[in-house]
């Protein structure tokens, strides 16, 4: 499986529900026996990737780039119809997915939902739960044996390769090479994203593209201006940054430099050039936390914490707390994903001006960001008759309608006059009910390449596009992204968790660097070296 996603999915979810995963393994055994091992390793090059057929006739205000910088738009283009046929003829397509919004209005009271299904020509039944519940819901759905037609793969699964082999459709004959031309909206997704959809030399997934990197968080430009810094690129090195953090902190005025959940380590990783998951060093693999850069980063952040530049207790914050403190000006720099800019932008004021944080090199050199947001997650299709697969792909093609199309407008903003109104600048402005109507998780089943667009806010579009333009060129991938390691899939997250926990304790001042080194050695002996061996074997293949 692909890199960015597989790695990130493991790190974030293993702790959530290993019980479910264990049970899943039992169930999957009924899928049939399969020779397990690193024989399943593959590289994206092994598969016949879909041909990229770029969209014609759409000129963005800010151009995208081949390495993944998304195009930017200041207003919504004149909508065009991207799907001329009706994909279904009364059939029902089932799906399991997740969502990150409040619960949408029901189908009967949701004009957008009704219109989408009218345009689809059939019913799209989506079982969706939140991220925290997905593991349980997905495990039980798979265990029940009645698999839906489309399945978001956003969890861990023992013998995932076996599941793909026995239960999921190899999409290579349907989408590989020129075959994708039958689905123009899917064909408009650049190859960069399809590379993440390969497993065991076959194209098993549909991509849900994101903007390559999640960025390095945000800073409040007003707070930095107060201490004479207008651009984070002006920060020369880690020492200068340390001084700046000191200037930004004034506990007597309830003002702090930093405050993010789990100390918001991502920007520091970028500053210290910690590799993304693994580094290839002379043919050998080194895990990110085994590098000197990682240890130096932890020591540095521990020093920052000790100096009192973090809001005390902020490492346990919930998102709302972090947002409130940042918007209220109590913190100056936070870590949140770059697409989260939309959360902060509406609160801009005389004292608050959110801007993407572009990292500097700790030693005065260049920083390095991570390609940690290439896909949201991939989507698997249940094995079926060719006609059924084509039907599902036609639905996916509809859901992947590109920015600028009528279908995109419908899926993201709903029905005009009910869910949104077009303003004078040709921007869809949501009505009160708009957000609840379009909260149906269509976009977590298939999606186009993203565009940077903040309706009616050219400045925000420029800010985020500028952020991506600065961050993506310095981004590095996970070198083992498309290589399958059974041990990593089964217990990679469980093995890494004690290391992350110890790192947090070290920063909090409750443990020492020696404890961290011990935790890393334990990781290696308990299975880390096995994972390394499997990946190295895959790299050599």
């Amino acid at each position, binding site marked *: 499986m692909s890199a960015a996603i597989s790695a*990130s999915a493991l790190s*974030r979810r293993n702790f959530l529900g290993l*019980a*479910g995963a264990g*049970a899943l393994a*039992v*169930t999957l055994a009924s899928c049939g026996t399969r020779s397990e091992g690193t024989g399943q390793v593959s590289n994206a090059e092994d598969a016949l990737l879909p041909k990229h057929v770029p969209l014609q006739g759409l000129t963005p205000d800010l151009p995208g780039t081949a390495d993944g910088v998304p195009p930017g738009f200041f207003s919504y283009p004149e909508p065009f119809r991207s799907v001329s046929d009706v994909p279904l003829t009364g059939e029902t397509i089932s799906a399991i997915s997740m969502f*990150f*919004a*409040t*619960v*949408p*209005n*029901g*189908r009967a*009271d949701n004009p957008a939902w009704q219109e989408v299904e009218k345009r689809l020509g059939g019913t799209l039944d989506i079982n*969706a*739960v*939140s*991220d*925290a*519940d997905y593991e*349980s*819901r997905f*495990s*039980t759905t798979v*265990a*029940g044996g*009645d698999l839906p037609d489309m399945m978001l793969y956003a969890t861990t699964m023992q013998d995932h390769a076996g599941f793909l082999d026995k239960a999921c459709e190899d999409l290579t004959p349907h989408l590989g090479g020129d075959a994708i031309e039958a689905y123009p909206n899917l064909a408009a997704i650049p190859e960069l994203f399809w590379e993440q959809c390969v497993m065991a030399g076959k194209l098993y997934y549909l991509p849900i593209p994101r903007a390559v*990197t*999640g960025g390095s968080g945000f800073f409040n430009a007003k707070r930095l201006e107060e201490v004479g810094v207008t651009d984070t690129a002006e920060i020369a090195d880690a020492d200068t940054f340390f001084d700046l953090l000191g200037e930004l902190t004034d506990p007597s005025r309830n003002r702090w430099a930093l405050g*993010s*959940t*789990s100390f918001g380590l991502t920007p520091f990783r970028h500053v210290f050039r910690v590799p993304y998951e693994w580094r290839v060093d002379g043919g050998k693999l080194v895990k990110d936390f085994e590098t000197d850069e990682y240890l130096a980063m932890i020591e540095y952040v521990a020093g920052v914490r000790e100096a009192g530049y973090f809001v005390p207790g902020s490492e*346990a914050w*919930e*998102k*709302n*707390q*972090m947002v*409130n*403190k940042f*918007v*209220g000006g109590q913190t100056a720099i936070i*870590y*949140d*994903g*770059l*697409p*989260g800019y*939309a*959360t902060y932008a509406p609160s801009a004021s005389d004292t608050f001006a959110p801007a993407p944080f572009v990292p500097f090199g700790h030693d005065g050199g260049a920083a390095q960001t*991570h390609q*940690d*947001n290439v*896909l*949201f*997650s991939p989507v698997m299709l249940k094995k079926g008759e060719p006609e059924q697969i084509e039907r599902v792909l036609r639905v996916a093609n509809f859901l992947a309608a590109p920015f600028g199309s009528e279908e995109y407008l419908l899926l993201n903003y709903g029905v005009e006059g009910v869910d949104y109104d077009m303003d004078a600048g040709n921007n869809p402005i949501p009505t*009160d*009910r708009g957000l609840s109507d379009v909260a149906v998780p269509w976009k977590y089943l298939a999606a186009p390449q993203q565009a940077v667009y903040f309706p009616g806010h050219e400045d925000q579009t420029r800010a985020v596009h500028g952020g991506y333009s600065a961050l993506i060129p310095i981004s590095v991938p996970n070198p083992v992204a498309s290589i399958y390691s059974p041990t990593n899939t089964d217990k990679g997250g469980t093995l890494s968790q004690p290391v992350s926990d110890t790192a947090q304790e070290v920063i909090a001042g409750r443990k020492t660097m020696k404890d961290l080194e011990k935790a890393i050695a334990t990781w290696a002996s308990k299975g880390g070296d096995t994972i390394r061996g499997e990946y190295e074997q895959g790299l050599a293949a």
Partner: protein
Amino acid sequence: MTITTRDPRTESAPGPVAEPRRPRPRARRNSRRPVWDEEPSLPATALKGLALTAISFLAIYPMFAVLATSLASQEEIVEKNGLVLWPDSPTFAAYEQILSGGVVTDALLRSIGITVIGTLCSVTFTVLMAYGLSRPRVVGGRFWLMSVLFTMFFSAGIIPNFLVVSELGLLDSYAALVLPVLISAFNLVVVRSFFMGLPQELFEAARIDGAGDFRILLTMVLPLSKGVLAVVSLFYGVAYWNAFFNAMLYLDMDKWPLSMILRQYVLLGQPVADNAAMASEMAAPTQAIQMAVVVVSLVPIVVVYPFLQRYFTKGVITGAVKG
């Protein structure tokens, strides 16, 4: 042995002779007198009052903060660092937003329906089974009792439960929220214990008069068991009201009860993972909206609870002292 105790209050009663009032001598505790016969001293009363105030404060403070925050504007919440104890300019905007779309109100009605029907079913079947198991010489009674008690200590697990529900064709039906949890072993033990404590003479008299088991249950046992039934109904009701996990597993989102909607709101405010993909997707609703949903979900239970509370102590003690 007879212990004579004086009413300590008489010590301070004014006597018939008008004497200059002397300060009351410090009451000494009679070691043979029970402690509750003593007049509490002023410091002890004050201390008790203080302790009760502190305990009440611990319970009321978070509830009040939730209510106050739900009535505050987002700007005020930010200004007050997320903790509002008195909204400067109260607004019902959060309530208008969650109640206008219909999602929360529909879920509220579904929750009320599930709770009422589920509680009725559960209480009915618990009473029937408890009555059967409370009668002496029931064939296999011990086996069935042990079978039920077994479920109190050992659970089948998520996937076996799901498979059973799926095989019974209950997926995406409200019955999936009720049938798998129809009888709670704990509640069954409480009700059975109560039934066993009823005087056997009543049963014998009824039998002599020709009453069968159903008549005995309906006309004698149930009227004598209002207290325990109220408590068990409360237990079942609260459990159905709060249950979300089965709804998450078995129901599509258009059938979700309020507890699941509430969970969705709360989860959106969870800590942001140190991961770009996850951090970026989560658009947390404002704190006022989260708190307003909490208040809406609390209201029905808060309304019902006082009517059942007087039965609460009796019922709980019944279950606790008789096994």
